[in-house]
């Protein structure tokens, strides 16, 4: 499935294994992107699976096509 993390260039194709959660997919993408502290970084993100809100702990459906994830934006 296609994975896009906010602020990165391009998107990644991640092969979903059985039992993968959204977090697993994002962590794998974060590792491939070379992000520091991939697990902590991913835990700050809110994912969207196929344009629908999701939780990091949600299992990835076999037919899911893409994940977009971004952090909160807090200004003041």
């Amino acid at each position, binding site marked *: 499935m296609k994975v896009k993390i*906010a602020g*990165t260039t391009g998107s990644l194709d991640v092969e979903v294994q059985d039992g993968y959660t959204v977090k697993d997919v994002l962590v794998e993408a974060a590792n491939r992107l070379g992000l520091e502290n991939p697990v902590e*970084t991913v835990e700050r993100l*809110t994912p969207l699976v196929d344009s629908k809100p999701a939780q990091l702990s949600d299992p990835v459906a076999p037919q899911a096509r893409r994940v*977009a994830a971004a952090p*909160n934006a807090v*200004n003041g």
Partner: protein
Amino acid sequence: MAFDCLRHCFGLVKGVILLRSGARAPQQTKVPVRGGPVFTGLFHVLLILFTIYGIIRLVSPLFFEGSQDLPIDPEAVMQLQHPLTTPYHPGSDTIVAPQLLLEQSALDMIAAYVNAAPGTEISGFGYVKKLPGSNVYYVATADDIFITEQLVTIGSAHVKGADYSLALDRAMDEERDDELRLQWHSHPSDVYFSPTDRTNIEVFGQTAEWFISLVTNRQGELRARFDSFRPVRIGVEIEVVVYRMADAAMIERARTDVAALVHQPKPLLPKRRGRKHTTAAVVVTTKQ
């Protein structure tokens, strides 16, 4: 010929000096010249000046590329979709600090959002493009500025990750997700990057390669910063330049009028061929 010219120039100068000193000009010269040495010298001086003028006209395009006869090409303007700026030439002394160019309508869109939320802050996003071969980033149209759902107070604006992700998702549909790199917000009065804003930048930097932050207020003051996180961490306040793209109809009218009404003196020397000009009619103002 050249030697004769010089000899007569010298004769002219000598004649002038003699006349000023009250002395008589020599009665006889080595080469009898019709009209006397003064007029012959004057003729040769004019000939030399004319030759120098011709040489300057001939070589000036080499030094002043595009300074004459600039055709305005509306197609080039439309294709450019970005303002003319000084490109960065690797190895040159050109300043390479990043610069943000905001098209006037994009700035107006931000101002409209800010004024539509009186008494509170507001934040939004924008699509940023990078001018190829430069360190210049630009927001081209009002359509590139938008907001998402958010919770605001007089001193904060909070966009949930889900709403930011939704914007990212839509950007993917439009194949513009790589351009979603501007985050702007308003302050009630002073424009500066508060500790909250700087923390937000660091949070974004955990995933982002680079992005641009902009803060504004209802008075229209602006400040922007560019943050790059990989391969090296750079955070720097950048200049914001507001520009206005001329529309194609206006450019075409100007081109037609100039072709019909504006005339140039006939060139003394034939024009060089094969030169191409690319120009855009752009009005630029700078806001610090």
